[in-house]
C-alpha cells in the first residue's frame, strides 16, 4: 500500500519537469511532449486519489483525459506540420511575426 503523498510528490515532480520543458525548449515538438508530461502527471494524481478513496471516478477521468490528449495531439501535430511546411522550422523562437 503506497502512501498517497508519494504519488503526489512524484506527480508534482513530473509536472515540474514538464513545465520546465515548456519553458526551456524551443522545438515546438519537444514543448508539446513536455505538455503531455504535464497531462500525465495530472492523470497520476487522479489515479492516486482514486486509489486512496477507492472510487472509480478518478480512473474514468484519466480515460477522458487520454481521449482529449489524443485529440490535441492530432490537431497540434497538424499545426506543427503545417508550420514546418510554411517556414521550414519548428523552432518557436524563430516565429514572431505577430508581436507587440
Amino acid at each position, binding site marked *: 500500500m503506497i502512501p498517497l503523498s508519494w504519488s503526489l510528490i512524484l506527480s508534482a515532480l513530473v*509536472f515540474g519537469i*514538464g513545465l520546465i520543458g*515548456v519553458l526551456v525548449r524551443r522545438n*515546438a515538438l519537444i*514543448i*508539446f511532449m513536455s*505538455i503531455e508530461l*504535464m*497531462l500525465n*502527471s*495530472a*492523470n497520476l*494524481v*487522479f489515479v*492516486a*486519489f482514486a486509489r*486512496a*478513496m477507492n*472510487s472509480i*471516478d*478518478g480512473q*474514468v*477521468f484519466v480515460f*477522458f*483525459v487520454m481521449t*482529449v490528449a489524443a*485529440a*490535441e495531439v492530432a*490537431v*497540434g501535430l497538424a*499545426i*506543427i506540420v*503545417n*508550420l514546418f511546411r*510554411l*517556414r521550414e522550422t519548428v523552432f*518557436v523562437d524563430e*516565429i*514572431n*511575426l*505577430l*508581436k507587440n
Partner: protein
Amino acid sequence: MNLVPPPTLLAVDWYALGAVLALSVGAMLLLLLEFVPKKPDSNRAAIVSLITLAAAGWSVFHVRGTARSLFGGMFVHDSFSVFFTLLFCSVAAVSVLLSWDYLKRTRIHQTEYYMLLLSATLGMILMAASNDLITVFLGLELMSIALYVMVGFRRGQLESNEAALKYFLLGAFASGFLLYGIALLYGATGTTNIAAMSAFVADSPLKENPLLIVGGLLLLTGFAFKVAAVPFHMWTPDAYEGAPTTVTAFMSAGAKAAGFAALLRVVLHSLGGVHEYWTPVLTAIAMLTMTVGNISALLQTSVKRMLAYSSIAHAGYLLVAVVAGGPEGASAALFYLAVYSAMNVGAFGVLALLGRGQEERVLVADLAGLGFRQPLIGLAMTVFMLSLGGIPPTAGFMGKVYLFGVALRAGLVPLVIVGVLNSVVSVFYYLRITVAMYMDEPRGEPTQVSWAVPAAIALLACLALTLWWGVQAHQLLLQAQRSVTGLM
C-alpha cells in the same frame, strides 16, 4: 453486479438537451452533406448552420422556465445555462452571417469551417451548462480544439498559422494546469461535481485545505487563460490578430463568455464558500488586466490588435463583477457579457468587411475617411467604439454603470476607481478610430468595402442592440438578474 439503470429522460429533458443534440447533429449533417454535390458558390453550409443554431436556441428557450439536472449533474438546465446558451447561439449566428461572404472572399472551406464553428458553440454551451468539472473540461477542450483549427484556418498564411501555433501550444499548456487543478480539487473534495463540491466546501471543518487552495488556484489560472486575464493573456493579441477576422469576432465574444460562465459557476458556486480567499487575488488580477490591456492598446496601429487588447481590458472589467460576487455581481457580469458580445462582435464584423479578396485592411490608417464614404460603416464603428469606451447612450455605458455600481456596493472602491480611470484611458484609443474615420484624409488608395447582405444584417443587428440596450436596458437587466438566481 450492480448495474446502474440507464438514465430516463422526460420530454422536457429532451428540449433541455436540444441545444447539444441540435448542434452535434448539425455538425455531422454538414459533413454528410458534402456527399451531395452542390454549386461552387452555394451557401448551403451557412444556411444549415443557421437553422441548427436557431433550432438549438429555440428548443432551450422553449423550456426556459424549468430547471433540470441530467446525467447526475453532468448537464444542468437552469436560467443561467439558458442565458448563456442563447448568448452563444446568437453570437455564433452573427458570426455565420459575417462569415457568409468573408469565406468566399478568402477561399476558406465552408463545410469544415461551419462544422467547427458549431462544435465550438457546443463546447461553450457545455462549459456553461455543466455542473461537473469533467464535462466543463471536455466542453472547454472541445471549444478550444475547434478554435485552434479555426484560428489556423488560412493555412497558406504565415500569420494565421503562427497564431494557431501559439494559441494551441499555450492553450494546451494552460489546460495542463487546469487539469492538474481539477485533479487536486477532486482529491480535496472527493468529487468532481460542482454542487457536491460546494456542499463539501461549505461544511468542511477547515477552510485551510491546501489541496483545495492549490487546486482552485490552478483551476483559476486555466479559466483566466481562456478569458485572457493578465498575466495569462499574452496569447490573445497574437491569436486574435492572426486569426481570420470572423473567427476573431466569434472567439472574442464566445470563448470569453464561456470562460466567464465556467468561472462564475466555479468561483461563485463551488468555491463560493471560500470566496474571501479569492477576493484579493482576483482583485489584483482584475486591476492588472484592465490596466495592462488598455495601456498596451494605446499605441497599436492595427485595429484588430488594438481591439484584441481592448478585449483583454474588458475581461478586466468583467473580473470586477466576479470579485464583487454575490447574485448582483453575477448578474452584472452576465449583463456586461451580453452587451460586450454585441459591441465587440460588431466591431470585428466591421473589420471583416474591409478589404477585397484575400487582403485584409485592418490598420487604423486604412480607416481614414471611411466615415463619410461609407456612412453605415462609419456610424456602426463609431457606436461600437463609443460603447466599448462606455459613453452613453450606448449599451457599454449601461453595462459599466451596473457593473461598477455593484462593485461599489461590495465596497471595492479602489477597484472601481481604477476601472473608471481605465475607461477614460480606453476612450483615447477608441477615439483614434473615429478620428481616422472622420477627421483624417485618406492616404494611398481608399479602402474598399466588400458589402454583402448577410454581413449588413449582422452589423445592423449588433448596432441595434448596442443602441437599444443603451437607451432601454430594462429587459436585459431583468434577464441578467433572474438568470443568476438558479446559480446561487
